[in-house]
C-alpha cells in the first residue's frame, strides 16, 4: 500500500507545486502534444530502467525473480528525457516540474521498503550502532531505507523554502541539483548495502550513481555557462 501512498503523495505535491508557482508545462515544452510524448518517453524510460536494473541487481546477488529499482527508474527516465530533448531540440532543463513529487515518492516509498523488511532486499548490512534494526533474522542492520527517506525530506525542505527566493535558479538548475543530491546520497548508502561488487569493489548502483553524478555536474556546468 506504500507504493500507492508514495505515488499519490508525489502526484499531489507536484500538482500543488505547479499550481502554487504557476508552472504550466515542463520548462522548454511548448505544445501539449510535445508534452504528451515527453511524458511517454519518461514513462517508458522509467519502466525499462527500473525493471532492468532491479532485476540485474537481483541476478548479480544470485537471487531469482524480477525486481524494480528506484535508482534504475530515475536513470532510465533521465536517459529517455535527454534522448527526447535531443530530437526535439530542447536545450534547457525540463525536470523541475517533477522534482517535488519525485522526492516525496522516494521518501514515502522507502518507508514502505523499511516496513517490508527482509523480502524487499533494500536493507543495510549489519551494524553495532544503537539505531540498528532487526528485520527478523536476529541481525541488527543499518536502516538504510530511512537514511534515504530523511535525506530526501531534508532536500525537499530546502527546495520548498528556497524556491520562492530563487525561482530562476531552481527552474534552470533545480533538477540537476536534485540528481546530484539523490545520486550522491545513494552512492554513500550503497556502501551500507549487501549488494555484490561488479567492478573495482563497487556494486551496480554505485556505478549508476556515479554516472548520474557525472551527468548532473556536466549539466550544471552547461546550464551555468548558458546563463553567463
Amino acid at each position: 500500500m506504500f507504493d500507492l501512498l508514495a505515488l499519490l503523495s508525489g502526484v499531489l505535491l507536484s500538482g500543488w507545486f505547479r499550481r502554487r508557482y504557476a508552472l504550466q508545462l515542463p520548462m522548454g515544452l511548448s505544445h501539449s502534444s510535445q508534452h504528451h510524448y515527453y511524458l511517454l518517453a519518461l514513462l517508458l524510460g522509467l519502466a525499462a530502467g527500473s525493471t532492468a536494473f532491479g532485476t540485474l541487481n537481483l541476478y548479480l546477488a544470485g537471487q531469482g525473480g524480477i525486481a524494480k529499482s528506484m535508482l534504475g527508474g530515475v536513470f532510465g527516465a533521465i536517459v529517455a528525457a535527454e534522448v527526447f530533448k535531443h530530437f526535439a531540440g530542447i536545450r534547457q532543463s525540463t525536470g523541475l516540474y517533477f522534482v517535488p513529487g519525485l522526492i516525496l515518492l522516494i521518501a514515502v516509498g522507502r518507508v514502505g521498503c523499511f516496513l517490508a523488511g527482509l523480502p524487499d532486499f533494500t536493507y543495510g548490512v549489519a551494524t553495532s550502532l544503537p539505531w540498528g534494526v532487526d528485520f527478523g533474522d536476529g541481525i541488527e542492520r543499518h536502516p538504510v531505507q530511512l537514511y534515504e527517506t530523511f535525506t530526501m525530506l531534508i532536500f525537499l525542505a530546502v527546495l520548498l523554502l528556497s524556491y520562492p527566493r530563487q525561482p530562476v535558479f531552481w527552474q534552470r538548475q533545480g533538477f540537476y541539483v536534485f540528481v546530484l543530491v539523490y545520486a550522491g546520497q545513494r552512492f554513500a548508502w550503497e556502501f551500507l548495502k549487501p549488494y555484490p561488487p561488479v567492478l573495482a569493489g563497487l556494486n551496480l548502483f554505485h556505478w549508476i550513481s556515479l554516472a548520474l553524478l557525472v551527468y548532473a555536474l556536466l549539466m550544471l556546468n552547461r546550464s551555468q555557462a548558458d546563463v553567463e
Partner: protein
Amino acid sequence: MVSNTYSLGWGVIFWLLWLAGLLILFLFGAFFLITAMDAPLMAFWNALVVLAEGFLLFKTARHFVRKDKPASELLLLVAVAAFAVPLVASGGCLLVDSMGSGLRFAG
C-alpha cells in the same frame, strides 16, 4: 466536437499496447481469484488494479472510436495502462507473497 485522424501505423501500436493492458487486467484478475479467500487485503489491491486497468482500457477504446482525443494523449493513456499501472501494481512486497519470486524492490 473535434475529430482527430489516426494513421494506420499509430493505430497498430495503440491496439498492441491496449492488448498488453488487457493481459495485465486478466493477470491481476487471476491474482484476485487466487487471493480472494486467503488474503483479503491483497485481493482488495488486486481488485483495485483490475478496476483501474479496466477504466483506462474502456476510456482509451472509447476515445479511439470517437476520435475525440489527440493521438499523443491517447498513446500516453494507453501506455499508462500497459506500463505504469502494472509497475505500480506489482510494487513493494505485495506480489512476493502471492508469486514466490515475484516483482519487488531490490535497490
